[in-house]
């Protein structure tokens, strides 16, 4: 029997009203998340990728009940939490924590690192006394590779990478089961990004964490995730185990997204699929398959009905009706092209 997932979303939707015109009446809605079914298994890292405007951050925030969904259900550890009030949610909030993109705006500049780290404990571990909180905060800092004496310092005394470590320590201090990380390495330099990714991999292992890793960077997701979901205009268009997604993409959007990643393989400029235009407005998405307006393989049928996400092989789902396509994997080109020294690393 398959183990029960930690998080399950069924038909999840999040709409935002758009005010337009002189009287500012609600004349339209943005369907930021539009009917998503998703499960995350215990101790799994699910990567969620998509371009800006795809709805990936909104989906993450809805799953955490930070932006309660307009429609659909969220089941956390066998309990449906969607109808819960803030008070009922509180014990669940302790079990799900978040790491944000910008380590500069997500830490209060007027609080010391110690105060920042102890804040969640004040809410969720009221039984703990001052000394107990301090000890926990010190431990959390050490977990993320920073010395305990940093507790008395302020955020501005730290570099971007160190601040992101502090943000991770704050998320870990309540020993959550689930972490949602929203673009946690996008604002960092590559060498610092590598340190933070290694840290995520380590704490995930040591604390047996379940994670949703939201990012626009497919190379990052390839490194950290067990499974990857690709989102386009509020819907998941493909979901598969990471290696499968990279080796055998089944949705043309995934193919295009991967083809667009510039890789440091010198002298080997791959033939690319360059999509035309931008992502359409989520206020009036195209009929049928939302990707058809930019898809190089679109046919008439694509405009007719919204293609459902369906199983194309065990564990691999895609929302494309064209089963006849053989799509290009970025691995086809790289395997021979990568320099010998890089393969040795």
């Amino acid at each position, binding site marked *: 029997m398959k183990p029960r997932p930690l998080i399950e979303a069924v038909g999840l939707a999040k709409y935002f009203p758009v005010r337009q015109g002189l009287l500012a009446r609600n004349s339209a809605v943005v369907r930021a998340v539009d009917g998503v079914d998703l499960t995350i298994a215990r101790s799994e890292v699910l990567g969620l990728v998509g*371009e*800006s405007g795809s709805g990936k951050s909104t989906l993450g925030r809805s799953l955490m009940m930070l932006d309660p969904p307009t429609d659909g259900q969220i089941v956390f550890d066998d309990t449906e939490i969607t109808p819960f009030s803030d008070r009922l949610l509180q014990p669940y909030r302790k079990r799900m924590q978040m790491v944000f993109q910008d380590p500069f705006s997500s830490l209060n500049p007027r609080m010391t690192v110690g105060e920042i780290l102890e804040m969640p404990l004040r809410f969720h571990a009221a039984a703990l006394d001052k000394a107990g909180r301090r000890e926990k905060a010190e431990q959390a800092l050490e977990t993320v590779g920073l010395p305990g004496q940093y507790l008395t310092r302020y955020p501005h005394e730290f*570099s*971007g990478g160190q601040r992101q470590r502090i943000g991770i320590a704050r998320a870990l201090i309540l020993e959550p089961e689930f972490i949602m990380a929203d673009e946690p390495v996008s604002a960092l*330099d*590559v*060498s*610092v*990004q*590598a*340190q933070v*990714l*290694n840290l995520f*991999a380590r704490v995930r292992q040591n604390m047996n964490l379940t994670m949703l890793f939201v990012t*626009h960077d*497919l*190379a*990052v*997701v*390839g*490194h950290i*995730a*067990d499974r990857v979901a690709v989102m386009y205009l509020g819907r998941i268009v493909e979901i598969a*185990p*990471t*290696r*499968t*997604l*990279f080796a055998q993409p089944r949705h043309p959007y995934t193919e*295009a*997204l*991967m*083809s*667009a*990643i*510039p*890789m*440091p*393989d*010198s*002298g080997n*400029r791959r033939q*690319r699929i*360059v*999509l*035309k*235009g*931008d*992502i359409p407005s989520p206020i009036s998405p195209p009929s049928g398959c939302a990707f058809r307006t930019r898809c190089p393989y679109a046919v008439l049928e694509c405009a007719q009905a919204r293609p459902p996400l369906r199983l194309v092989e065990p564990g691999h789902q895609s929302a494309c009706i064209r089963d006849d396509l053989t799509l290009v994997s*970025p*691995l086809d080109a*790289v*395997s021979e092209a*990568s*320099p010998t*020294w*890089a393969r*040795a*690393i």
Partner: protein
Amino acid sequence: MSANITVSDLSVSFRSARGYVPVVHGISFSIRPGETLALVGESGSGKSVTSMAIMKLLAPAPMTRIEGRAVVTDNQGNPVDLVALDEKQLRHIRGNRIAMIFQEPLTSLNPVHTVGDQIAEAIRFHERLSKAEARRRALSLLEQVGIPEPAKRLDTYPHELSGGMRQRVMIAIALAMEPDILIADEPTTALDVTVQAQILGLLRDLQRKKGMAILFITHNFGVVAEIADRVMVMYAGRIVEEGSVLHVLSSPRMPYTRGLLASVPRLEHAGLGQAELGTIPGYVPDPAAPPAGCAFHPRCAHNKPGICDVEPPELVEVRAGHQLRCSRWQELCLEGGVR
């Protein structure tokens, strides 16, 4: 063919409470027509300061001190040194012979003027033209940078355009006077990968047609491989490795370059549950208190006390066109390569 821009021994210092702090140390390079030179480095390496110094966009003396030369050709075909020009003379060169595009097009465009007016203004600043004529040129430029329905877009405001479209408008303004040199400072960093691929393709096409030299500043080695012919790696205000993209990306010799490349997650390893990414310990040094000897030695896995922390290494040529700054490069090569 002679170079479109020749920078020699360019140094930049910023004034601080304790005197001038050097942030760029004697950088030299030249770019030929139709060539793209990438300048790579982490935040704080001095790559943007270098480009701003060439464009003379930094705070004027005495706040900053710029030394060295940056020679381009003026409208009459005479060589001029940008460093020596005053603001009035610069105005004829900047936006005309040498243009620049930035990371965030929304802050570089004026929100209260239409796209068409802004392009026309850039043209009329350098050339005596009627408004109607300038508008026709603006239209043709929008067409050249691949904006759909260009006639309609002339009268839109920047906020009505997507990030990719705004960057195309910036490119249209930059190319209005057909400059010899384009400086592109992280022009695709804020864009999605699919849009980035479009913009890189556009820059390549325009370069092929117009033959301009491009200085492309980025922190992304993938983008370097995609667009550049040659690459310079910058660390703590100095060029530490320079060569063809092929040489530098497939056989980097300087430990810093190797460290940076090893920290990039590689697609071919995706989903294999791979080992840790390579990292470089520590941080970029404070320009006011640089380490003795090689600026990278405190973070370098191959640091040898008595050598690396004594003499700052010179830039040496290790093969034709491939230069680097490391006192131990020969030893490290013999050891079977740096890891």
